[in-house]
C-alpha cells in the first residue's frame, strides 16, 4: 500500500452525509468494553432481568409456535405489524387508561425504531426538539442524526416544570426556530428516575396544545411502578397532538425488539411508509412470540414479578447510597423503573472519574451523555435492574470508595484542605 500521498484509511471519507460528522468512537466506548466483563459490577446499562422470565415455558411456547405457525411466523408480513399483536397491544395500553384502535398502532423494532421513524417524518435539519433535562441518550442520538437541536427543560422532583416548558417554547420561537415536538418520558424517567406528578399532566398537555407543539410520550417503564396502579398516560387524556411510544423490552424481553407507536391516523400512514423503508416489516417471529406470550401466559403476573424484583433492587441501591455516599451528593428516589440519578459533590466530573470506577470494578453511565448541551458533568446514572441486591450494595460501596479517592484528588488541585484516605 502506497501511503506516501497520505491516507485517511477510509476510502469513503469524502462521501459521507453531513449527519455522520458526530459518529466517532470515544473513550467511553473503550471503558464500557471493559465494563461488560463479569468481574465488574455493571450498573451502567439499563438491561432488564430477563432471567426472571419463565424461560422453559417460553422455549416450549416458541417451539410449538414455529411447529404450528412457522409458515407465517417466518415469513414477511405487513409493514404495520401483525393485527393480532396490535389488538393485544391495545389491551396493554388500556392498563394505563388509553383507549385505542389497533388500526392506529404501528409495531416497530423496539421503541428505538419508533423514535427513528417519528424523527424521520417530523424533523428537518435545524428543527428543535424540546426534551427533559436530562433526557434518554438513545433519543438524543436519534435527534442528532436527523440534525435537530435539542432544547432541554428543567425537571424537579415532580417531573417536567411547566413554567420552564413555557419559557423554553417562547425562547425557541423568539430565536426564529421551530420546535416540532416535546419528547418526554413521564413515568420513571430514564435517566432521572422521576415521575411527572398527576397534578402537572394536564398543564403540560395544555401548554403544548396552546403552542401547537406535538407531544411524543415515551413510556417503556409505565407498568413498572412500585407504589400502586400505573398513572394514566398522557395519551389517555388526549387523542390528538400526541404520539405514544410503547415497548415490550422492559415488561417482557429486550431481545425480541418489539415496540410500537400509537399515532393519529394521518401520521400513522407516514410512519408505516417510513418504517417499511427501513425494515420492510417488523420482525414477524418476534411479534408472534410476544403475541403468544400475551395471549396464553399470565403476563401481568410476570410484570408483578418484575415489579417486586426491581423494587428490592431499588431499595438496595438507595440504602447503599444512604449508607456510603458522602455529604454533598444527592440522588433521586424512583418509585418505579430502572434508574437512580446521582448528583456528585461540586468539583467532581463523573466522566473523568469513570476510569477510576472501572479500576474499582464498578460501572455507571456519566451524566453528560444525557444532555445535548454539555450539562451533566456532576451526574451519573445508576441502573439497578440487572445486578442482584447484594451485588448492588457492593457496587455502590465500591463506587463510594472511588468517589472518596476522586474527591481527594479534586480537593488537591482546587487548593482545598484534604482528608487523607478519603471518607
Amino acid at each position: 500500500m502506497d501511503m506516501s500521498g497520505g491516507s485517511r484509511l477510509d476510502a469513503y471519507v469524502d462521501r459521507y452525509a453531513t449527519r455522520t460528522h458526530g459518529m466517532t468512537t470515544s473513550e467511553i466506548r473503550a471503558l464500557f468494553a471493559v465494563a461488560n466483563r463479569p468481574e465488574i459490577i455493571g450498573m451502567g446499562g439499563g438491561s432488564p432481568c430477563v432471567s426472571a422470565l419463565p424461560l422453559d415455558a417460553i422455549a416450549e411456547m416458541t417451539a410449538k409456535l414455529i411447529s404450528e405457525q412457522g409458515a407465517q411466523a417466518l415469513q414477511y408480513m405487513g409493514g404495520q405489524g401483525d393485527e393480532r399483536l396490535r389488538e393485544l397491544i391495545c389491551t396493554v395500553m388500556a392498563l394505563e387508561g388509553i383507549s385505542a384502535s389497533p388500526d392506529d398502532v404501528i409495531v416497530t423494532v423496539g421503541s428505538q425504531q419508533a423514535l427513528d421513524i417519528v424523527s424521520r417524518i417530523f424533523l428537518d435539519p435545524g428543527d428543535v426538539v424540546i426534551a427533559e433535562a436530562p433526557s434518554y441518550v438513545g433519543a438524543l442520538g436519534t435527534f442528532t442524526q436527523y440534525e435537530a437541536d435539542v432544547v432541554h427543560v428543567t425537571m424537579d422532583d415532580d417531573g417536567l416544570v411547566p413554567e420552564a416548558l413555557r419559557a423554553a417554547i417562547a425562547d425557541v420561537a423568539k430565536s426564529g426556530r421551530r420546535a416540532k415536538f416535546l419528547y418526554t418520558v413521564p413515568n420513571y424517567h430514564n435517566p432521572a428516575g422521576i415521575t411527572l406528578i398527576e397534578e402537572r399532566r394536564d398543564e403540560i398537555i395544555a401548554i403544548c396544545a396552546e403552542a401547537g407543539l406535538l407531544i411524543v410520550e415515551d413510556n417503556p417503564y409505565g407498568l413498572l411502578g412500585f407504589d400502586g396502579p400505573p398513572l394514566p398516560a398522557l395519551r389517555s387524556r388526549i387523542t390528538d397532538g400526541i404520539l405514544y411510544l410503547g415497548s415490550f423490552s422492559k415488561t417482557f424481553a429486550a431481545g425480541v425488539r418489539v415496540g410500537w407507536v400509537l399515532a393519529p391516523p394521518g401520521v400513522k400512514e407516514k410512519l408505516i411508509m417510513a418504517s417499511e423503508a427501513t425494515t420492510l416489516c417488523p420482525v414477524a417471529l418476534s411479534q408472534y412470540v410476544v403475541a403468544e406470550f400475551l395471549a396464553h401466559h399470565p403476563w401481568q403476573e410476570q410484570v408483578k414479578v418484575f415489579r417486586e424484583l426491581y423494587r428490592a433492587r431499588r431499595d438496595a441501591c438507595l440504602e447503599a447510597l444512604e449508607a456510603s455516599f458522602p455529604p454533598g451528593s444527592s440522588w433521586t428516589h424512583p418509585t418505579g423503573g430502572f434508574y437512580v440519578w446521582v448528583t456528585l459533590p461540586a468539583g467532581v466530573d463523573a466522566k473523568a472519574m469513570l476510569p477510576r470506577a472501572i479500576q474499582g470494578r464498578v460501572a455507571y453511565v456519566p451524566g453528560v451523555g444525557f444532555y445535548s448541551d454539555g450539562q451533566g458533568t456532576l451526574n451519573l446514572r445508576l441502573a439497578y435492574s440487572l445486578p442482584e441486591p447484594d451485588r448492588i450494595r457492593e457496587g455502590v460501596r465500591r463506587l463510594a470508595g472511588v468517589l472518596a479517592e476522586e474527591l481527594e484528588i479534586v480537593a488537591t488541585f482546587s487548593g482545598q484542605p484534604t482528608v487523607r484516605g478519603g471518607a
Partner: protein
Amino acid sequence: MSDLGPVLVLAGGLSYEREVSLSSGRRVTDALTALGVDVQLVDIDAHLLPRLLNDPPAAIFLAVHGIEGEDGALRDALDLTGVPYVGATGSAARLAFDKPVAKAIVARAGLHTPPSVALQHAAFRDLGGPALLAQVVRQLGLPLVVKPARGGSALGVTVVRTAAELPAAMVGCYSYDNVALIEQYVAGVELAVSVIDDGTGPVSLPAVEIEPLSGTFDYAARYTAGMTEYHAPARLHPAQAAAAGAAAVLAHLTLGLRDLSRTDLIVDAEGQVHYLETNVAPGMTTTSLLPLAAAAAGLDLGTLCRDLLHHAVQRGQSRPGAM
C-alpha cells in the same frame, strides 16, 4: 498449512484498551489464518493458565494492550509456563511501559526527549496542588501534555494550553494512573516508527506520519477511520527519516526489547527528533500504525506475525531446560 504448530493470540483482558486489544487480536488471528496457521484468539481470564499448562501451544502472539499486557506481569506469568511468546520480556516491558522511566533510559543513551516531570498525586497533596502546578508551569512553560505514566491509546492524555486547564487535566489523568507525566509540548511532525527483529537484528520500518485533522491525536482520532491523515513513509527529508529510524532502533535496544516495538517521536521545525514513548505491544487494528508501516514496507502482516512466532518458538527451544 504452516509448520508452526498451534498458536494462540492473546487479546482482551480487563485494561481500558480491551476493545482495541480485541480488534488487534482479531486482525492478527485473521492474518495468520489466511496463511494456514492453526491459530485461536483467546481472552485473558482464569481459564488461560490451565489451558497453557494442559495443552501448551507452540507460541503465543500478545495483542494485549494497556497495563494488563504491557506492564510485564502477563509476560512474567507466561515465562512461568514455559510457553514462548512474541515480544519483550516482563522486565523489559516494565521499563518501557513506564513512560518517565523509559524517557530517562533513552535520554542516557543520547536521545532527546521533551523536558518533563513525573509526579504522584501524593506530591501535590503534600506540597499543595496549586503551588506545585504553578511551579511546573514556570519551569516547563506552556503548552504542556499531561499523560498517565502508564497507559496507551491516548487515554487520560490532555494537551494543556493554559494554566487554567491544568487542574482538570491532572484530575482526569489520575483517574487512569497514580503517576502523571507532565511534559513540555513539542510542535512538529508526529511520527510512529515500528521496529521488527525476526532474529536477524532490529530494523526500523518506514516512519508513519500522523496528521490528526482535529489537531490532536486522541482516542477518537486514533480509532475512527477518516479522522487522521497518515503518510507512510513520512514526508521527511531522507536524513530526518534515517534519524527517526535510528532513534527507534536505539530505543528498542536500549530498553532491552525484542521482536517488535513502536516508538512515537516528534520531529520539530529544526529537524530535531524528540522521543515520546515506546509501545511493546503495538496496536494491530486497521487504523494502527505498525500494520501501516509494514504495508508501506511491502510486508504482509500475516507473514510478519508468523515469522515473529517462528522466532519465538526457536528462542523457546534454545532456552536452557527447554523440552
